[in-house]
């Protein structure tokens, strides 16, 4: 039997299906478009029915009024019926939504104070989160702008015992790696250099990327004009070629297409321009502008290093073949390391090869700081939601009557919850919209003040993804703060609410507890943020107090770079710098001048291996390296570095005399613990003079040359005259203004060679400031969030206590009438406040300690569990909480018992 019935049913469905769908749609469209007339028709139709029924009753002899009454009663509740009819014709939920939204807007307009506070709070929360997320997205999450960026890896070398320093490769080793592996489809090497561009206006120093020919094809980049490098361009003897970056092409050459094929002068060598790459292509340094690319073989410095097996200077990027796993690639790298160590032990023993995803390498260690930022601002949003939820709960209490009426008229619990959620949706949209507008401004401010060293930081903007995040956040927040009051409203006991006065005698325990819990939670969250901010602040102030080991005030530095093609020999470099120094020292007010390469904190550092004469050469297991600086004799006096033993480098240490060196205290302590280092000889040198034996003639104080937060490293100084370089960094201590010093230096340099630009002019005080830019930035931001949190917590407590006082007015009146003094009332309210604050603190302290532990390397000079910070922050928070409760408490004190008891 069953199959027959089923067949009949499907038959009907099949034939009627098409018609059904269409009529359904028609009905929906009609009910949407002609809502009003449909309503009127429904009214008319139902009225007609009732009248006809009444007429029938009349005909049967019932009295007129009785007939009408009976007809209406037996027909049933018209409103509910109409709602059922509306539901049956589809799109009912949309009707209801529109209704709720309109109602919500009306309510918001009627309470402008509440609306303003709620919208502003939400806007701050959503705006701050969206702004921070835009930075996190641009730096951490957005995939790198290269084709299949997940296949790109940075392949580096590190020493077995000192895995903190990731270094590059030598060219010869790189070639072995490139040709001898089976896992990378392409590999390329890159480095950076600064070359002087002459012949187009003022001589300018340009950031140049020095690359192997496969570089651009590795990244899948296409030129916007001309061509990219061929393999032939990388062979020695090939004519020098250069690729321009789009920005330089537009800026300096006016986007002239004819530049392709003509030559430009870099370091006085003619390079033929062969192509232009788009401005958005950037590598290896993602923070500086990429302006020129030349093949490695033509670089004046690195080109000459290509023939050497030792050294670790070439940055290698490889593209993994599709389908090859990382483990397999790592295994292959290990095999290659072993082979290189076996074949060339002198240069390679103790070195391992590894790889990390390119994105990770670029982002480095800012991940912790950024995630901290995101976490902190997330907490702020949570607190904002708690505040708004509290506000809504307060309002919900005064709406119990309204809800009761709605329930009595037939609204189900689901309907009421939906209504409240829709109202909150309005709030959410308003707050979220305002928040996104704030986010635009916030992102602008962030990118303006962000430290320049944040990779890809200036890419942060409110794009589609970030906008989507902001909207999602608003929606989630709306649900979050809307749910609590909605659930409470729906639970209301109808009879009680309809009967009761306006509830002056108290309120349901559940609601009261919920608000107190929210306020206490806010205190806890505020504690976490304040402790973290406090710790960062202490770290930062400790950082600023660090003694760098050299003088910082009134110090101006400037760099001059000598093109190798013009100044080919070390003698010429030495001669140039000593003459320049003499001229500068002759200038009035500038006799304290010196030359040093590299300058601590200002330039990168040079780390070289060394041997101690007379001791066995270092094995693979040891690491004997120190930071190297080439200095002129006046250096230590100008920089204020103290002499601890022996003598400084002086004017007698020239090229012709015996090789000498000066070491730092740390080097002496580490390697000459129980002996006098003076007189011993160290073997070190800037390539190619790697193994020069230099006699130690003096020991000087330590300087922090890498970063203020790092302990001073072992340092070795060589006389510039004995180890000259092609660049010279002048450091001048003068009471003259920085601009006059700079002008004087420029004058002197131009007098010697008019084509030499002077670059990197800065005051050492600024250099120091820039070196702590990142900690400063994050301390500032976190401090800002902590301040926001404090305000939110205070507002939360104020709201809860304030409302509690207004609810308890009658109780307070009674107490006062029974003899309680005003003081006692004050005490009662303050006690309530204190309880809230104490609960919040009790929960907040362990959370804060946990969060502080996550800070890790961001802390400096202060431990994660620092008691002083905890105590200070805790008492401050408690104080603020008490203050927030004191204001409503004063109001309680002033309650006139007569008025309170009379008021119903």
């Amino acid at each position: 039997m069953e199959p027959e019935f089923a067949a009949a049913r499907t038959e009907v469905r099949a034939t009627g299906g098409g018609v059904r769908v269409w009529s359904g749609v028609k009905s929906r469209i009609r009910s949407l478009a002609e809502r009003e007339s449909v309503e009127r028709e429904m009214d008319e139709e139902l009225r007609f029915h009732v009248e006809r029924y009444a007429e029938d009753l009349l005909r049967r002899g019932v009295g007129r009024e009785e007939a009408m009454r009976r007809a209406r009663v037996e027909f049933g509740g018209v409103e509910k019926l109409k709602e059922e009819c509306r539901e049956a014709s589809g799109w009912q939920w949309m009707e209801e939504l529109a209704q709720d939204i309109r109602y919500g807007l009306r309510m918001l307009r009627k309470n402008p104070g509440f609306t303003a506070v709620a919208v502003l709070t939400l806007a701050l929360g959503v705006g701050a989160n969206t702004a921070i997320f835009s930075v996190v997205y641009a730096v951490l999450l957005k995939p790198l702008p290269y084709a299949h960026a997940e296949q790109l890896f940075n392949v580096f070398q590190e020493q077995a015992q000192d895995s903190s320093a990731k270094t590059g490769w030598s060219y010869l080793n790189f070639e072995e790696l490139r040709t001898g592996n089976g896992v990378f489809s392409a590999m390329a090497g890159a480095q950076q250099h600064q070359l002087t561009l002459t012949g187009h206006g003022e001589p300018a120093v340009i950031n140049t990327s020095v690359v192997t020919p496969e570089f651009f094809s590795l990244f899948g980049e296409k030129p916007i004009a001309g061509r990219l490098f061929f393999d032939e361009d990388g062979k020695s003897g090939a004519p020098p070629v250069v690729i321009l970056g789009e920005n330089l092409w537009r800026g300096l050459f006016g986007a002239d297409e004819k530049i392709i094929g003509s030559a430009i002068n870099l370091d006085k060598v003619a390079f033929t321009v062969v192509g232009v790459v788009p401005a958005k292509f950037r590598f290896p340094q993602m923070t500086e502008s990429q302006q020129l690319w030349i093949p490695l073989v033509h670089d004046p410095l690195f080109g000459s290093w290509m023939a050497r097996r030792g050294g670790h200077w070439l940055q290698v990027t490889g593209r993994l073949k599709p389908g090859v796993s990382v483990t397999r690639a790592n295994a292959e790298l290990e095999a290659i390391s072993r082979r290189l160590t076996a074949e060339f032990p002198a240069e390679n023993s103790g070195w391992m090869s590894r790889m990390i995803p390119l994105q990770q390498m670029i982002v480095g260690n800012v991940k912790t700081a950024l995630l901290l930022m995101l976490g902190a601002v997330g907490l702020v949003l949570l607190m904002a939601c708690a505040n708004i939820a509290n506000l809504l709960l307060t309002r919900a209490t005064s709406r119990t009557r309204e809800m009761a009426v709605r329930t009595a008229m037939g609204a189900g619990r689901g309907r009421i919850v939906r209504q409240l959620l829709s109202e909150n949706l309005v709030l959410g949209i308003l707050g979220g919209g305002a928040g996104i507008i704030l986010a635009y401004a916030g992102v602008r401010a962030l990118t303006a003040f962000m430290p320049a060293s944040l990779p890809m930081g200036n890419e942060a903007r409110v794009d589609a993804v970030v906008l989507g995040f902001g909207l999602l956040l608003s929606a989630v927040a709306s649900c979050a703060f809307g749910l609590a009051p909605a659930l409470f409203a729906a639970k209301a006991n109808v009879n009680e609410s309809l009967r009761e006065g306006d509830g002056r005698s108290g309120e349901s325990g559940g609601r009261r507890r919920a608000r107190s819990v929210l306020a206490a939670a806010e205190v806890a969250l505020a504690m976490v943020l304040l402790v973290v901010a406090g710790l960062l602040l202490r770290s930062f102030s400790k950082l600023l107090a660090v003694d760098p080991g050299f003088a910082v005030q009134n110090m101006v530095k400037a760099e001059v770079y000598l093109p190798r093609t013009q100044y080919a020999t070390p003698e010429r470099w030495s001669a140039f710098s000593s003459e320049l120094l003499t001229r500068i020292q002759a200038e009035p007010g500038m006799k304290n001048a010196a030359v040093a390469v590299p300058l601590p904190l200002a330039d990168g550092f040079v780390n070289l291996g060394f041997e101690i004469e007379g001791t066995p050469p270092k094995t693979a297991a040891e690491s004997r390296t120190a930071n190297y600086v080439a200095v002129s004799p006046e250096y230590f006096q100008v920089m204020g570095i103290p002499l601890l033993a022996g003598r400084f480098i002086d004017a007698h240490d020239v090229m012709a005399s015996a090789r000498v060196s000066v070491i730092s205290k740390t080097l002496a302590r580490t390697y000459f613990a129980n002996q006098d280092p003076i007189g011993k000889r160290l073997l070190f040198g800037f390539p190619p003079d790697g193994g020069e034996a230099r006699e130690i003639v003096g020991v000087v104080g330590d300087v922090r040359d890498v970063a203020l937060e790092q302990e001073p490293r072992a340092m070795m100084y060589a006389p510039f005259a004995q180890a000259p370089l092609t660049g010279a960094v002048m450091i001048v201590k003068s009471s003259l203004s920085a601009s006059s010093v700079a002008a004087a230096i420029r004058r002197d340099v131009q007098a010697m060679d008019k084509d030499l630009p002077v670059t990197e002019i800065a005051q050492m005080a600024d250099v120091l400031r820039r070196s702590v830019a990142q900690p400063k930035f994050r301390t500032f931001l976190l401090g800002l969030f902590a301040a926001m949190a404090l305000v939110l917590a205070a507002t939360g407590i104020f709201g809860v206590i304030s409302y509690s006082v207004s609810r308890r007015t009658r109780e307070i009146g009674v107490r006062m009438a029974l003899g309680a003094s005003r003081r006692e009332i004050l005490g009662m309210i303050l006690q309530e406040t204190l309880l809230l604050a104490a609960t919040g603190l009790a929960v907040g302290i362990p959370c804060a300690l946990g969060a502080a532990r996550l800070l890790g390397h961001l802390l400096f000079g202060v431990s994660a569990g620092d008691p002083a910070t905890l105590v200070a922050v805790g008492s401050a928070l408690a104080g603020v909480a008490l203050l927030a409760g004191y204001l409503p408490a004063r109001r309680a004190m002033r309650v006139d018992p007569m008025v309170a008891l009379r008021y119903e």
Partner: protein
Amino acid sequence: MSEKTDVLQGTLDMLILKAASLGPLHGYGILLRIQQISKDRLEIQQGSLYPALYRLEHGGWIRSEWGESENNRRAKYYSLTAAGKKRLQAETEKWSRMADVIAGILSAKAGEV
């Protein structure tokens, strides 16, 4: 008075379709006709008629038209659509088959099992 039995939703749909099949009627008229053809044995709640009418119209089984009633007042008249006719037919067949089966079961004598 004869017994009045409660009417389930699916059955109400069918009754409405049947009533409307005999000629266009307004809501009150359909109610009267159902009472009429059931010989007053079925009681239908007045209000529940209209949600059912709206549902049937939404589903395309009946269509409505405004017209003038007997006493020159505006009323909405419902009539069957082609799909409605087919459904009524199918439902009628289903019910009569069902009735046969039940009748067969209930009239089974001891010996026939």
